């Protein structure tokens, strides 16, 4: 029975975290690519005229994604190397 309780408890946490990252990052990426399409115009954006501001939008979203990826990589690499990863505000901290 313990397993079932532990499993349900863990499963919903993984589902929430999975949704935040696993659906959140595609959302950000789609918005970024949308920005690129707006900047490109024409065939990419349903025939609309190119609007250079799209590039800025894309840049903002790509920076957010890149930050998340760097966090993810840092977490994966440092926990693998045996560090404990924590946070001090927005900055990750690593300790043995």
């Amino acid at each position, binding site marked *: 029975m*313990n*397993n*079932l309780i*532990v*499993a349900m408890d*863990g*499963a919903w*946490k*993984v*589902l929430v*975290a*999975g*949704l935040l*990252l*696993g*659906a959140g*990052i*595609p*959302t950000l*990426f*789609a*918005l970024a*690519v*949308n920005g*690129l*399409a707006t900047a*490109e115009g024409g*065939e*990419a*954006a*349903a025939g609309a005229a190119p609007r250079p501001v799209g590039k800025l939008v894309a840049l903002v979203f790509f920076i957010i994604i890149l930050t998340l*990826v760097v966090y*993810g*990589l840092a*977490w*994966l*690499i440092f*926990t*693998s*190397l*045996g560090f404990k990863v924590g946070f001090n505000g927005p900055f990750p901290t690593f300790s043995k």
Partner: protein
Amino acid sequence: MGRVTTATVILVMVVVTALAFDFTNGFHDTGNAMAASIATGALSPKTAVTLAATLDLVGALISVKVALTITNAVIDGIQMKNGLPNPQFIGSDNGKQGTLLLMVVLAGLVGGIVWNLLTWLLGLPSSSSHALLGGLVGATIAGFGFSQVNWLGHSTDKLDGVVGKVLIPSLISPVIAFIVAAVGTRIVFTLTRKMGEKFRESRFRYGQVGAASMVALAHGTNDAQKTMGVITLALIAAGQIDVSQEISIPLWVKIGAAVAIAMGTYLGGWRIMRTLGKGIVDINAPQGFAGDTSTASVILASSGLGFALSTTHVASGSIMGAGVGRKGAEVRWSVAGRMASAWAITFPAAGLVGAIMFLISRLMPELLGAVVVVAILIGVSLYIWFRSRKDPVDKHSVGKDWNAEPDAAHVADAIPHAHH
């Protein structure tokens, strides 16, 4: 010392067999990271396996996760809490080194390998760790009876036992991944509905390669550790590691396991990749990206929360979810169903092989038993390889349309109970 003992000879066979298992683990799982990228054309098959193998190698080498207590999750009393083998199982019938434990490990590994090869032949993704644990449990049952198996687990705050480590994760992982990928895919298609198809396809391919790389790296940090744990256990059992100090995994074991899994990954399990990338559902780049991001996120989230899930089950669930998330996509549920049946029988099937191997080895003196078991493994492997040559899938045919290949139906028919 100076004299080659029976234990040493069996140990060498265990180490080589463990590395062979690690190799099958590699090609069994290449598709988890790369099937979607190959299917959508984001990467050429050759580039995909090179990338996956490199990241697997890096992941395996940097990871210091301790897998010394590998059997404890499902077997009672073979290892103690700190990873040392139980003295009861050290020593053979005539009181020499720990050949009894070595034989259990050898039979278990053979069970895992045979099941991995069979599912590869049928093009079915299945969990290599479940195959390994199944093989070890089967050999344990054959050797010491059912009471030695840790079915329900002892822990009150962690998943434990066959139910907690094998059954529950295999039910939960694909469901979570399915939901995450389906939601992600739906959002992506909603947000990009006005975008030109060609533009969307080309841009999402870049994202897909990034997500797939993350999956490959995460895989390396996890899977090779299990082989390292098994080899180290065998070394301890054979008296080759000084247990009076803190036990650590020897460097050569680490490098050997990392190289073996990377080589397997580079070989590419094309048959399995074909099922994952083409068989379940036809996907395009946004779906591949959402699916791979879901796989990477769910794996990282689950290992971060200490709730380890099987990469294979997560990756398969993600691809199905990405398929369903796009309106009008057709998921081949019959293929998905066969895959799910393979998951369900992986543990008992590998266990059965492990048990039979152990029983065979007991019919004769230990050294001969080990040689016979390894010989059977080589024979079965060759047979499966020759069978696979009848309808080969390689890097040239991996991306072909599923229905266009007459052999695909033949492969499907070879799976028992696949008929409706």
